[in-house]
């Protein structure tokens, strides 16, 4: 019964040192030396200060910006200290109301645009921090952004294209547009 206590205690301590201290420190050391930007959160730096992360979506509601995906984090949207989805079930009336409201908000911001709304633009992301929208969702908003900013749609289209990533290696994942980077580029362009 008691014969296994010493191996239990000593191996627990030694293996904790190995896997709980040495291993994370080793990974931190190597990543901080070789890939510091990524290991520290892919921050977007302006004048030496971080002004956001290219992996953290921000919330937009002004018609002059491309809007991100809805975020269900609390208390404010896109809150990285409280990540998560809405967890609303597919037949929950609250989900129908939320989607209806989002479709309406998009139509109000862009009267006359009666195209069907791409689904990712009116459904909350899993993390509540999704930095991307689909190219279809960018396309849906393009005319509005161009009109409010008094830009030609082609200029905006070019910026969208610059911030669109295809599938990785042409195969993996989905094509996507980085909303924060695109909006920062829009603000910087004029």
């Amino acid at each position, binding site marked *: 019964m008691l014969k296994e206590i010493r191996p239990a205690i000593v191996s627990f301590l030694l293996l904790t040192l190995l896997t709980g201290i040495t291993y994370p420190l080793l990974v931190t050391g190597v990543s901080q030396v070789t890939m510091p930007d990524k290991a520290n959160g892919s921050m977007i730096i302006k004048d030496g200060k971080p002004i956001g992360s290219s992996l953290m979506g921000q919330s937009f509601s002004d018609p002059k910006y491309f809007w991100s995906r809805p975020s269900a984090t609390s208390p404010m949207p896109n809150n990285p200290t409280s990540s998560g*989805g809405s967890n609303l079930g597919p037949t929950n009336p609250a989900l129908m109301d939320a989607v209806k409201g989002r479709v309406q908000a998009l139509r109000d911001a862009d009267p006359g645009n009666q195209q069907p709304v791409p689904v990712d633009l009116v459904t909350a992301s899993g993390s509540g921090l999704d930095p991307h929208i689909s190219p279809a969702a960018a396309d849906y908003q393009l005319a509005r952004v161009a009109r409010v900013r008094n830009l030609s749609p082609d200029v905006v289209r070019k910026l969208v294209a610059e911030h669109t990533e295809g599938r990785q290696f042409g195969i993996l994942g989905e094509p996507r547009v980085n909303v*924060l980077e695109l909006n920062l580029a829009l603000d910087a362009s004029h």
Partner: protein
Amino acid sequence: MSANGLLQIALFLGVLLASTKPLGWYMARVYEGQLPVFVRWIAPLENLFYKLCGVDSKDEMRWTRYALAMLWFALLGVLTVYAMQRLQGMLPLNPQAFGAVSPDSSFNTAISFLTNTNWQGYSGESTMSYLVQMAALAVQNFFSAAAGMAVLVALIRGFARHTMETIGNFWVDMTRSIIYILLPLSIVLALALVSQGVIQNFSAYQTVPTVETITYDNPKMDAAGNPMKDAAGNPVTEKATTKEQVIALGPVASQEAIKQLGTNGGGFFNANSAHPYENPTPLSNFLAMLAIFLIPAALCYTFGSMVGDTRQGWAILVAMTILFVGFLAVAEYAEQNGNPAFTALGVDQSASATQSGGNMEGKETRFGIVNSALFATITTSASCGAVNSMHDSFTPLGGLVPLAQIQLGEVIFGGVGSGLYGMLVYAVIAVFLAGLMIGRTPEYLGKKIEAFDIKMASLVILIPPMIILGGTAIAVLMDAGKAGVANPGAHGFSEILYAFSSAVGNNGSAFAGISANTPFYNAALGFEMFFGRIWLMIPVLALAGSLAAKKRIPASIGSMATHTQMFVWLLIGTVLLVGALNFVPALALGPVIEHLNMSRLG
């Protein structure tokens, strides 16, 4: 499904199956103590380690001693993880100055990580210090995975040996699992993940300015710090604005790697693998999915190699793959079809070159439908429980797939070690059923399967449904159980059923709308996780001991071959039949009713 979707799935299965033989061969050599040349330099350190621990690596254990060693190690794990959470406020590496975690939540989390479940009632980024994450939780990711692998290796020895009383040495099997298998793979995977943007640092949370001023509804708190409610019970809010975003950071990549490789699944952040810092790119997602299945698949080869007939391992792997593809097809189809109620609202859910379409609630743009449904099927056929999309928001049939796979006992690839030992128990049941049909004493791998063996196998098969359904029944009868439900109707029942299935199956994923960080759920699910793990390991070890002691009988013309196509289908049939008999009524009350309701909306 699009050609690209099929290509992504084929690529995943191709890479997985190509890695099975080399890794499986390597693990067999490690467990048999015949180290390949390229890792022999570690052996002196391993021996020094045994010396310090007072372990004689040649000292073989009977199954009872093996189980006892495992239990001592588990007990230390529970106590340590509990204590570190309770003392968190006094320990270093806590830049956000988080205080002690509540006693019931600490208990639940300690059991959760010890049992390889990684059910998370808490939200990592607002609860756990960096020290607790890496030195308590991530350590258990290694230990619980290694314990599962050790128990599997003991069971394999039961088949491989004959007329022997012992099944190996727990300390040796556990240590080798960590230092030769889990740790080296974790280091490589962690660095690969950082290259994709997974973070790895010890910085305090970073505050950045937002482009727009954000207006939101802030819940009003009373003097005691509890949210205020109006007469109707709705939270009282006031308008607030912010121009800042506080970005949570931490040593994520090192934890992420072992979380997937050890089929643990506990996220550093609440959003788990949907979080852009845990899973930033399609490649990081591909590596995560591969890491979940890598060891469970390769262990099939290890099994075949150690019992001296690799065809036996391949037969099991083929059965697993067929079951997996079947479930995957249902999940992909249901999620891509989307939510019929949305179409009437003016929403475009069709798949095209510029959007994935489908049911995108709770899913990330970079993963779309293909990789969300694929990840969900992988994480619940393995006992991982990491999620890259929110299962609670899946369509009813899409959500039925994860639920049903957990209830089958996570034997389709399954958890590291635990998946294959579960599947081998099903194999024992399958040969028993076949034996009954033709009136012969069943045999498997040259071992006669007798009454004691069938009793142990039956315990492994019957305990989980009993405590899943029993726990669910109790929860739906109690106010404390119903209080946690977030969605109305049949879906609310599914949330409770999923929670108990996930706990007992040691999966850890959730229909996460349920508020499970309450004393009732923390206690109930804590006990369920414990029984779902330990009470299955003990009969498995007993089975190993019993098999090892038996004589090996040579195959005769009357023996059923267990590497053939017929056996593969027999095994698949056994898994589905046993699972279906146990759970179809409960599934009918949850996802099936909801599916019928949803069809009416469209």
